[in-house]
């Protein structure tokens, strides 16, 4: 009798204690997480910016300085000086004589595990892609992450045709084919064992180049005209 009444009396106090314990630990946890987040944020952002800069130099060989551009809805480029970047961003790379090497374009899309973020280098003179790098991916280690490491795959992007036809559209959309079946200059040789991931890269680049490359091509032509007229003067 006394036992059962004891339990009945203890119960409310006990659940209160449980609640206090859980809420207390929750508050400590929240505090710790927010503290670390705030402390590490500046450094993480700096490291990410550095990694991006390195990636731009990588996909546009010979670049020594860059200029960030945003893309207007009407298809023109505008310079960005501050940190607030819009959704789609283009980086122009210049060599030591201030001559344009090419454009680096950031793109993202669904991979096998999560969103894959990539950057590719576009050479407007030759109208080809000249470099490619994965910025962020959570693809399966050992399988899907071959898109970052496999040399044969990465070699696809050293000379990938993205030429623009007369009507201002891309002649051929970039696409991934099965490994060993690449026949045309705009096709990406896929990876056996990373089919979905390598196809995802093809999709991301295909979609992004369809949108951005005509704009860049237009911008480049205008830039050349300007330069020519400058020389004539």
């Amino acid at each position, binding site marked *: 009798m006394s036992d059962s009444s004891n339990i009945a009396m203890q119960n409310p106090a006990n659940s209160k204690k449980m609640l206090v314990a859980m809420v207390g630990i929750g508050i400590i946890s929240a505090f*710790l*997480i927010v503290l670390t987040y705030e402390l590490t944020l500046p450094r993480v952002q700096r490291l990410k910016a550095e990694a991006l800069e390195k990636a731009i130099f990588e996909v546009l060989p010979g670049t020594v300085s860059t200029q960030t551009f945003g893309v207007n809805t009407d298809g023109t480029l505008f310079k960005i000086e501050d940190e607030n970047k819009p959704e789609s961003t283009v980086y122009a790379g210049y060599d030591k004589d201030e001559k344009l090497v090419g454009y680096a374009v950031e793109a993202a899309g669904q991979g096998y595990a999560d969103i894959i973020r990539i950057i590719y280098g576009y050479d407007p003179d030759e109208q080809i892609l000249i470099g490619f790098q994965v910025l962020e991916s959570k693809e399966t280690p050992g399988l899907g992450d071959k898109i970052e490491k496999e040399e044969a795959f990465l070699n696809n992007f050293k000379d990938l045709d993205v030429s623009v036809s007369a009507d201002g559209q891309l002649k051929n959309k970039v696409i991934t084919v099965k490994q060993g079946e690449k026949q045309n200059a705009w096709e990406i040789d896929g990876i056996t064992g990373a089919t979905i991931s390598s196809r995802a890269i093809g999709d991301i680049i295909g979609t992004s180049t369809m949108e951005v490359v005509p704009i860049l091509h237009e911008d480049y032509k205008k830039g050349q005209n300007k330069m020519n007229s400058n020389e004539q003067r």
Partner: protein
Amino acid sequence: MSNDNSTTKEKVTSTDEFIKGLWRDNPVFVQVLGMCPVLAVSNTAENALAMGLATAFVLLMSNILVSLLRNFVPKQVRIASYILIIATFVTVTDYAIQAISVELHKSLGAFISLIVVNCLILSRAEAFASKNTIGRSILDALGMGFGFTLALFCLGAVREILGNGSIFNVPLFSEGYQSWIVMILPAGGFFTLALWLLIINAIQTRKVKS
């Protein structure tokens, strides 16, 4: 070796508390705990070391907090509170690794968040830290953490040498070396773990006999 039974805590010296995790009760080779990261992230020596240290850090911090709060947390919600504490420190570690190196964060990827479900950490919280003083819990966590790191490194080093012909990304063999790719694939993890378990068990049985 003969008095393996460490229930008589009072008699266990501090150094023993530390040493036991390294050898006698090694979390990987003897207790066979936390196999997911052991098999998955031990494909290179660098990854293995980073993963081991990250786990050791989470283990240390959670052991400290669990031990501090051991008289405050009611029995009924102890597991929930341990998981909350562990998850907190895993998130902290995640941010810290990102701040140290983006590259490292990229190569460890999803496995950092998976430290939450590493049964080694929960088992130390439940079996040790919730019943012992902070000092002992710290020693226990350090011993177990370094034992775990050591074991991961043993696996990672063997797999990287055989599978990639290098150690810490430094090539060991001449150009002609045909790397044994299966060793860095998941199957290689099982092979290497079995090999190490065989060696450790052989040594221990020999010790008991003599």
